């Protein structure tokens, strides 16, 4: 078992973290929606993205302008190339001033450079003043969330911590503990000689830094001590002061579903202060450290520069199904998917190379990003670079690069496996898999079908006078595990007067290879399938698997875009490819007359690719409703089932934990049937749900008034 999987198992055993994070996540989605009332998130985040794109394009120029303006207003600006330089500057400054006590307000940039440990080693007393950060500091842990560092701790644990570390008896009552923190930290504020803060925005035009806080510790840190040090990453620059407005509108709404944080502080240059001895200083010392530490290198990277648009709202963590289970284990100093990318540049490629495996590719984070960053795309790119550098594991090399592109070998292998699985199949279910016993623990997986779909096509019903021809791309799961879905597709299309053609030469769509970071293997599969599908002149190419649709429609053109020979073919195919439910919905008038009322209480499960890439998850719902089904939505909606293709093989325990949450939502809906459009989700959900789990095509086919084509 890999070290990472061990860590995942350890994190999963700490139920407290996932309990807190999932509870927060469920509330967050609803509260955030409310906070955006009257606002257009899509427009706002586009403005943020444009501002940050300008920043990245003009990074050096803006940095120089910021230095000039802030200096003119009385600040001292230091440009630190590395974490070491930033730390040394602050330590030297404290030493030169004879400073022994430092208060800090929350700053990820200082976490990134491990400032506290360094200053403490230099003999300084450093106190975090954000309540969550203070709790983390007292407990000697590391923050588990960008915005809510102590979200994983219970009130009892905090009370116990206060008793132990401060020596004060306090009831595990939150308002009492908050008052205790106020009293204790007020003493620190009043006696500190240096305040260190981060900044959410740095404005080149005016040399201003903006700090958003709720507790007020940011204001005290930047006001009481006579020396203020700001540590701010270069990417926080924006060109103009007016640019802070869209950031102020998005950041709090996306971070904590607040319309605005309690305090927004704009500091421009030096202002008056009184020191702890009561002496009035007309000009306090303001030092601003513009931190590079890998950011310039990132800006020079044609792909990863996009990650510099991040404004650290942490929405991507809040909605991430993996993060909800693992908390800080998914990431390093910066957590979650964005943390993986930042780690690659700020800390080290090796660490990021490990962590990227934890992304299951559900794409939900992209929907919520403040700056429209294609985070799933960045993680895919990171994975490709990891594979290019280190290769894939031996099992993946044989299976994905060796067998998958050799269609006959692959299909022969599946057929052999279908015969050999017999000893493990009981009542039509795989009960204990050899090699992967974790996968079958506590559930029954569907076995490989003894007769694949490709051998059943001869028996499909055919319309007597076909209205058109449709090419069906079945994909591996339908072909070899769920051929019934393919047959259902055939029956529904026959009722609609369509002749279904299943070209023999098609194989795996290649997504597993793409997902594993093997674009070369993927391109080979793309060419094979294109050649097979192009042979037949058809109205449309449909699939009953959203992942296959995404591969054919979006990924083939991407991977073959440089290839003149294939570019035109991919373009033509991409236009014709559609998923089953969208195709039927568009032509529903041709089907509905043949449908008997669907008398079922159904809850619909959104597959990630159908919802977030194809944006088609409304169509199967509409179809089922039009067919007379009673639709019961799940609460919360939008939960991933945890399948993620090879993810479920790599992290079976994690995949299972995510599935448990899905199962609760399904059972909470009171529906007898889960409808879905993705055979992967069906594989995953069907193995645990006690009710029926069916593809939309199967539900429609079962309701056809004339089981044989008219």
């Amino acid at each position, binding site marked *: 078992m890999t070290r990472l999987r061990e860590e995942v198992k350890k994190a999963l055993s700490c139920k407290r973290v996932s309990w807190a994070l999932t509870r927060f996540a469920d*509330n967050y989605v609803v509260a955030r929606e409310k906070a955006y009332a009257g606002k257009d998130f899509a427009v706002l985040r586009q403005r943020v993205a444009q501002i940050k794109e300008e920043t990245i394009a003009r990074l050096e120029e803006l940095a120089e302008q910021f230095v000039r303006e802030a200096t003119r207003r009385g600040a001292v600006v230091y440009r630190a190339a590395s974490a070491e330089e930033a730390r040394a500057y602050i330590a030297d400054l404290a030493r030169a001033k004879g400073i022994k006590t430092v208060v800090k307000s929350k700053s990820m940039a200082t976490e990134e450079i491990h400032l506290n440990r360094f200053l403490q080693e230099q003999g300084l007393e450093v106190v975090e003043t954000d309540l969550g950060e203070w709790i983390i500091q007292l407990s000697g842990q590391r923050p588990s969330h960008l915005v809510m560092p102590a979200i994983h701790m219970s009130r009892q644990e905090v009370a116990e911590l206060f008793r132990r570390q401060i020596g004060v008896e306090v009831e595990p009552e939150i308002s009492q503990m908050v008052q205790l923190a106020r009293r204790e930290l007020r003493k620190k504020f*009043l006696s500190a000689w240096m305040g260190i803060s981060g900044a959410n925005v740095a404005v080149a035009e005016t040399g201003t830094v903006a700090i958003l806080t709720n507790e007020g510790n940011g204001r005290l840190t930047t006001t009481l001590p006579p020396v203020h040090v700001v540590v701010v990453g270069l990417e926080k620059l924006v060109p103009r002061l007016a640019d802070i407005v869209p950031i102020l509108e998005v950041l709090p709404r996306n971070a904590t579903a607040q319309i605005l944080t309690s305090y927004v502080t704009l500091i421009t240059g030096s202002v008056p*202060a009184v020191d702890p001895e009561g002496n009035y200083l007309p000009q306090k010392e303001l030092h601003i450290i513009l931190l590079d530490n890998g950011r310039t290198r990132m800006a020079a990277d044609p792909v990863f520069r996009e990650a510099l648009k991040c404004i650290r709202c942490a929405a991507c963590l809040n909605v991430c199904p993996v993060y909800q289970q693992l908390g800080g284990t998914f990431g390093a100093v910066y957590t979650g998917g964005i943390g993986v990318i930042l780690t690659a540049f700020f800390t080290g490629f090796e660490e990021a190379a490990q962590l990227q495996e934890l992304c299951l590719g559900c794409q939900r984070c992209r929907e919520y990003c403040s700056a429209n960053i294609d985070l799933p795309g960045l993680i895919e790119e990171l994975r490709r670079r990891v594979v290019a550098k280190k290769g894939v594991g031996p099992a993946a090399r044989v299976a994905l690069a060796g067998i998958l592109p050799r269609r006959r070998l692959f299909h022969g292998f599946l057929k052999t496996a279908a015969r050999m699985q017999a000893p493990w199949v009981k009542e039509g279910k795989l009960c204990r898999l050899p090699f992967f016993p974790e996968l079958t623990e506590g559930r029954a997986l569907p076995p490989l079908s003894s007769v694949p779909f490709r051998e059943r096509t001869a028996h499909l019903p055919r319309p007597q006078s076909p209205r058109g021809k449709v090419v069906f791309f079945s994909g591996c799961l339908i072909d070899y595990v769920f051929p019934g879905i393919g047959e259902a597709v055939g029956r529904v299309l026959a009722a609609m007067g369509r002749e279904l053609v299943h070209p023999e030469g098609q194989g795996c769509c290649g997504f597993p290879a793409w997902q594993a970071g093997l674009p070369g293997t993927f391109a080979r599969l793309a060419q094979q399938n294109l050649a097979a599908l192009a042979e037949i002149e058809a109205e449309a190419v449909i699939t009953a698997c959203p992942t296959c649709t995404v591969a054919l429609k979006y990924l083939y053109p991407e991977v073959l875009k440089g290839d003149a020979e294939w570019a035109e073919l991919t373009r033509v195919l991409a236009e014709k490819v559609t998923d089953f439910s969208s195709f039927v919905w568009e032509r529903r008038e041709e089907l509905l007359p043949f449908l008997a009322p669907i008398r079922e209480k159904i809850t619909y499960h959104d597959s990630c690719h159908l919802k977030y890439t194809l944006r088609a998850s409304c169509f199967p719902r509409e179809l089922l409703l039009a067919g007379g089904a009673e639709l019961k939505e799940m609460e919360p909606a939008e939960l991933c089932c945890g399948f993620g293709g090879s993810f479920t093989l790599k992290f079976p325990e994690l995949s299972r934990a995510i599935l448990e949450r899905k199962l609760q939502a399904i059972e909470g809906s009171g529906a007898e049937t889960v409808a879905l459009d993705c055979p992967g989700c069906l594989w995953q959900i069907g193995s645990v749900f006690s009710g029926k789990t069916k593809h939309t095509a199967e539900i429609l086919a079962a309701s056809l008034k004339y089981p044989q084509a008219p």
Partner: protein
Amino acid sequence: MAEREELISAFSAQAQALGAEVYRASSPEEARALVKRLIEATGVRRVALASSPLLAPLNLALVIEAAGAELVKGSLREQAEQAEMGITAFELAVAETGTLVQDATELDTRLFSMLPPIHLALIPVKGLVANLEEALNYWLAKGEIPGYMAFISGPSRTADIERVLTIGVHGPGRLLIVLLGEEEAELND
């Protein structure tokens, strides 16, 4: 001035939703009487008063005394530490977000709005703007941005323990807002 009234009611609703208490006085006499009542009602004994051209004509030092409280003395830090209530003035308020906006470059304004457990904020209704963009444009139009600008929306809050919202961690736990109105505009409405 229907538009101003809309801004006032939007601001009040939003600020109250954030946990601030909003009052309104339509004349200097009303403002003085209101501040006296608020000091009496909160029961504070020691009050810190920031100097400001807006507050000067209200002569609040006398009001504080009349309410049975005293103005704190000593260095600015000592005043801020001792005061149970700080009184400061604001130039702008943002209706959409319930936010008060202040040039807090002067140390007394900054300290008295941060340290005492109760913050009494006075703001002329003519300073109400619709949104953050208008607020920022106001300062941009004035020339150089002040050294320390404070945007305050409701009292200090935290949700760092178990995500439970708790008021008054490092900053004031109570924010009392007095809108100083112009009578004639409202009577004509």
